[in-house]
């Protein structure tokens, strides 16, 4: 379908479009025109990715700036989905325009997924693949070869050097699979092809970490220009990703390894002094001058880079007392020894970076400034020493990164030392958490550098929380409802059991047998009435285990067993994937199954339960975080002090976004249907925090039900759903053909003109607003629902 949004011709690869997709595109265009950031929430399963891609590609091709698109997603499967979507879109465009556009779209993932080297690719762990790849491809290895030494090289990597550097791969969209195949045919490395071609791509699709994790971002995403359009998809968890990318945990074991690494470095330095003292001297004189090699940043093989540092600091010369290699190793050793000493303390400590530094200085005479240059100095040293077995130095690098971060940021970070793993443990196993409290620190460079950042997800409510936490301002922030021709999902809040006793996973009642029996009754009833699959979410593994064992003793599981197979998620990912496979088989062959899982586990995030794989989702209890965690407490305090977000507000926000994620798992499209049950009395008050598309479908009468009421309502709902529903009934309401769209546009146009005539037009804002479109679509929907639907249904019945 081809249509215009204002002056922009958009090619949409499907013959029909959803109203919310159109609204989404209009808002996107508005954002891009205004050149700012936006937060958009669009219900899951309504084709967010395709509308995003088709608008942005149209935008790229139509305007002369050809702004590059950087599309970040969270998991491999999502990246692949997006690439396939993009490929289909470009094919459609080529068909419609009658010519192939000069266009390149590439995906980037880790070396492990893209390696072709016969022996390296067989390695299991990603870290080993990375290390081995580096030892075959690093710049100095090549130099050695040229000098005539006998070293192994990767033929796939070297073949790249024979090609034109800006044309390593022909134009087009390459899926990861396609890249691998092309690489195999041409004998060239897909990973480095993708990395090197990034400046010449129109669309780049990769994981969050390539932009957010400062250790990687510096290497990978440095050369992207300012006018790039950055999209974070599935971004409801983005603050946690930011925080994780800057947090470091040190254990006694990792410190021991780091110390060993430092000793090894020392040995290498003495060796080198005997054989090739000149090289060290060169490095030294370069550091004296404060020069950095221009090609240093281009060195893909280098294994580490600086965490987020202010730019002016990066230009400064390395302080004099760690300039010499042997001084630096002694310095590192001293620092590690100090950390070891700190680890021996047997009570919990939490302190800010400044007080840590003060104490460090008193004890070991390590100043703040050299500490700040630690990571950089280590990188330089590793390069000079031409180390290949880099994985041995990983712990040392971690310590260096820690040193740099602790000396750079005074606020927004906290050091927490926990000597025991749990409160009851007696054998100390100390962990030093260096936690980032401020999500804005990691993402700040992204917002500073790129003019348009789009944050989008299926569940990102409340929208205003994200700009607040991440420290940016939006030009557009919008949440779209789902236009539906019939009510195809039924959200309910169950607050009482059949015995009218309130149900809750709250601390006081969580192990109350009556409470658990009521939950059991809920499960039994729904397992009887739901066809095929049910997914049940618990707030935590611990709670799930205790509930399951109590259900077992109450005989609940025996009754459930009659109608459904029971499968349980575990923290082990392989076991879980096995359970999932079994679950799918059972759903497909009609046996039906129940999957018991955890709201923050793997299942709740990446796995879709479309159609018969999930007809009911039960959320047992509000999935609050574990509030006794010291890290969480520190973060809450920080949020209150800096952003004025109250503890309870944040906890409830966090719980509800996970809950919404869980609920969204079952509805993956407009032809899908499902029941969403939130079983906790506390949900009744948190209704407003659900995404708009769920809360607008949640009726007042469904917001405070007992188990038997919920069962009756669910039965009624399923009866309606089981009737056949021809697609043509959706037309004009929840899907628009080209004519519908034109009609809508002309209607909007005439309205505008009328407004202009009446002199009410609001200034220069000529843009289409998504919410207007949605409002109208909803109005049509209401109209239809009453009159036409009845008629249509009668027709079918007859």
């Amino acid at each position: 379908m081809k249509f215009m949004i204002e002056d922009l011709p958009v090619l949409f690869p499907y013959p029909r479009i959803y109203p919310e997709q159109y609204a989404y595109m209009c808002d996107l265009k508005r954002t891009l025109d205004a050149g700012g950031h936006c937060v958009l929430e669009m219900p899951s399963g309504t084709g967010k990715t395709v509308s995003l891609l088709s608008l942005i590609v149209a935008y790229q091709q139509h305007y002369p700036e050809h702004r590059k698109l950087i599309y970040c997603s969270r998991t491999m499967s999502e990246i692949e989905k997006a690439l396939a979507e993009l490929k289909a879109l470009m094919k459609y465009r080529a068909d419609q325009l009658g010519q192939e556009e000069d266009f390149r779209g590439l995906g980037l993932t880790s070396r492990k997924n893209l390696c072709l080297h016969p022996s390296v690719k067989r390695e299991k762990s990603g870290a080993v693949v990375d290390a081995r790849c580096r030892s075959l491809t690093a710049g100095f290895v090549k130099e050695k070869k040229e000098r005539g030494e006998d070293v192994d090289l990767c033929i796939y990597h070297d073949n790249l050097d024979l090609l034109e550097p800006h044309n390593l791969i022909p134009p087009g969209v390459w899926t990861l699979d396609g890249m691998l195949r092309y690489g195999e045919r041409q004998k060239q490395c897909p990973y480095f092809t993708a990395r090197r071609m990034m400046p010449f791509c129109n669309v780049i699709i990769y994981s969050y970490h390539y932009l957010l994790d400062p250790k990687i971002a510096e290497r990978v995403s440095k050369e992207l220009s300012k006018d790039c359009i950055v999209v974070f998809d599935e971004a409801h968890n983005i603050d946690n990703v930011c925080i994780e990318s800057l947090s470091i945990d040190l254990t006694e074991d990792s410190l021991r390894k780091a110390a060993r690494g430092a000793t090894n470095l020392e040995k290498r330095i003495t060796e080198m002094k005997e054989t090739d003292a000149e090289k060290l001297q060169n490095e030294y004189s370069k550091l004296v001058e404060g020069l950095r090699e221009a090609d240093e940043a281009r060195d893909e093989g280098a294994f580490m880079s600086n965490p987020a540092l202010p730019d002016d600091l990066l230009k400064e010369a390395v302080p004099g007392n760690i300039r010499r290699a042997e001084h630096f190793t002694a310095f590192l050793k001293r620092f590690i020894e100090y950390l070891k000493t700190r680890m021996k303390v047997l009570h919990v400590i939490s302190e800010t970076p400044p007080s840590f530094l003060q104490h460090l200085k008193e004890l070991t005479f390590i100043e703040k400034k050299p500490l700040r240059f630690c990571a950089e100095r280590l990188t330089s040293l590793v390069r000079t020493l031409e180390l290949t077995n880099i994985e041995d130095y990983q712990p040392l690098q971690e310590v260096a990164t820690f040193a740099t971060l602790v000396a750079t940021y005074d606020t927004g970070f906290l050091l927490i030392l926990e000597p025991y793993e749990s409160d009851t443990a007696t054998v100390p196993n100390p962990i030093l958490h260096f936690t980032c409290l401020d999500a804005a620190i990691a993402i700040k460079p992204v917002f500073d550098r790129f003019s348009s950042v789009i944050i989008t997800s299926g569940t990102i409510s409340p929208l205003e929380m994200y700009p607040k936490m991440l420290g940016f301002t939006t030009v557009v922030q919008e949440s779209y409802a789902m236009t539906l021709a019939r009510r195809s999902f039924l959200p309910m809040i169950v607050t009482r059991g059949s015995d009218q006793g309130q149900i809750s996973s709250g601390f006081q009642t969580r192990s109350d047998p009556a409470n658990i029996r009521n939950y059991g009754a809920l499960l039994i009833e729904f397992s009887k009435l739901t066809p095929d699959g049910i997914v049940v979410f618990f707030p935590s593994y611990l709670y799930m285990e205790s509930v399951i064992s109590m259900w077992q003793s109450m005989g609940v599981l025996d009754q459930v067993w009659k109608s459904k197979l029971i499968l349980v998620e575990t923290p082990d990912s392989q076991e879980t994937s096995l359970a999932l496979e079994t679950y799918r088989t059972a759903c497909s062959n009609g046996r039906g199954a129940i999957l018991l899982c955890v709201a923050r586990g793997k299942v709740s995030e990446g796995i879709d339960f479309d159609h018969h794989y999930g007809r009911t989702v039960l959320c047992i209890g509000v999935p609050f975080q574990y509030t006794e965690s010291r890290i969480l407490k520190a973060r809450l305090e920080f949020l209150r002090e800096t952003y004025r977000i109250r503890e309870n507000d944040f906890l409830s926000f966090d719980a509800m976004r996970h809950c919404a994620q869980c609920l969204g798992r079952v509805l993956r499209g407009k032809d899908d249907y499902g029941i969403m049950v939130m079983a906790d009395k506390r949900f009744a008050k948190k209704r407003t925090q659900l995404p708009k598309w769920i809360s607008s479908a949640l009726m007042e009468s469904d917001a405070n039900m007992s188990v038997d009421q919920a069962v009756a309502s669910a039965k009624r709902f399923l009866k309606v759903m089981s009737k056949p529903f021809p697609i043509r009934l959706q037309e004009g309401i929840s899907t628009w053909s080209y004519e519908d769209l034109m009609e809508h546009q002309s209607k909007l146009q005439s309205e505008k003109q009328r407004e202009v005539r009446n002199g009410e037009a609001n200034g220069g804002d000529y843009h289409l607003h998504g919410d207007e479109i949605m409002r109208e679509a909803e109005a049509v929907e209401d109209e239809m629902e009453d009159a036409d639907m009845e008629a249509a249904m009668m027709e079918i019945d007859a």
Partner: protein
Amino acid sequence: MSRLAQHKTSPITKREVRIGDAQDEVCPVCKSSRYLTPSLRFLINPECYHKMCESCVDRIFSHGPAQCPIPGCRKTLRKARFRAQRFEDLQVEREVDIRRRVAAVFNRREEEFETLHDYNNYLNEVEDITFNLINQIDIEETNRRFEEYEKMHEQEILENASLEEREKVAFRDAKKAERDLAKERRDLARKEEEEEKKEAEENKRDVLNRLAAGQDAEKVTKQGQQVTLKKRMDRQAAAERQRLLHLSDARNGSSSLIRGLKAKVKAEPEAPIDPFGGLKVETKYFSVQDDYVWAGVQETKADVLMGAGGYDVREFTTRALCDAFSGLGVFIGEDSAERERIGVDEKAVGTITAERGVKRMEAAS
């Protein structure tokens, strides 16, 4: 700072420290092990850094200085200098002791240097000395340098030491103040929350009362909601104001703390040579005026008869000015030299430029 930090004492207290692991917990002198004597404590002496247990120290050194009991080490040790081991690695322990000594003398600060390069070189030099002391390279030479420096900079060392002490105290005070402030804010937030809860309750009660009194239900609930909303907005606005105030306070306070290199004193820019000793020869420019007040013209200007014929005084003044100033841009000296060079008939043309004009005319025709 978190709540946890408040009951934090010095990070390393005697009672709670574990030193070393179980396997090396045997005193090298008396061979008693931690297994048999759980209260075993090891001490070291910064003379030779040999480790021994507390009872050995008591036994051997109670009667005055004695030789170290470790075979091969003949250092004379005193009891007073024995202390607990701080780092697991004795090398580091020793290094830190040496560093303490060095840091007490080489305590110049970044502010004292004008360029970063100098500062870095200084740091490098200090590190060299320290490194030599630690690894016992050129001990005599290094010690000599060390003492020399100490003697030369006696005064500065003292000054910097006191400065450092003051800074330390200031830091401690700032930390304490920060902690108090955090506590205050926490209390405030708690109080606020309670108040809000109480208010909500009150509001609810009020609505109920009014409903009981038989007022219009819809109106009452709406009013109640409005009241809550308004109160919340007020509170938020107040909080925001407070926060902004704090922010500006903090900004003002922090500016004094920023340190860096010593402010460079820029040399006065050297004045250009002035051969006339201040006498200035400046060119004066005049701009052409519309009207010149001059007795010869005034009458003509006022005369209607003159004006009626189309005569304008300005034409006259312009011509007069042209007459007066034309030729000022011509330098006779240059021109005559030029003329001689080309050998033109000087009567035919006035200036060399005119000559060129004539030539061009000829060429054109």
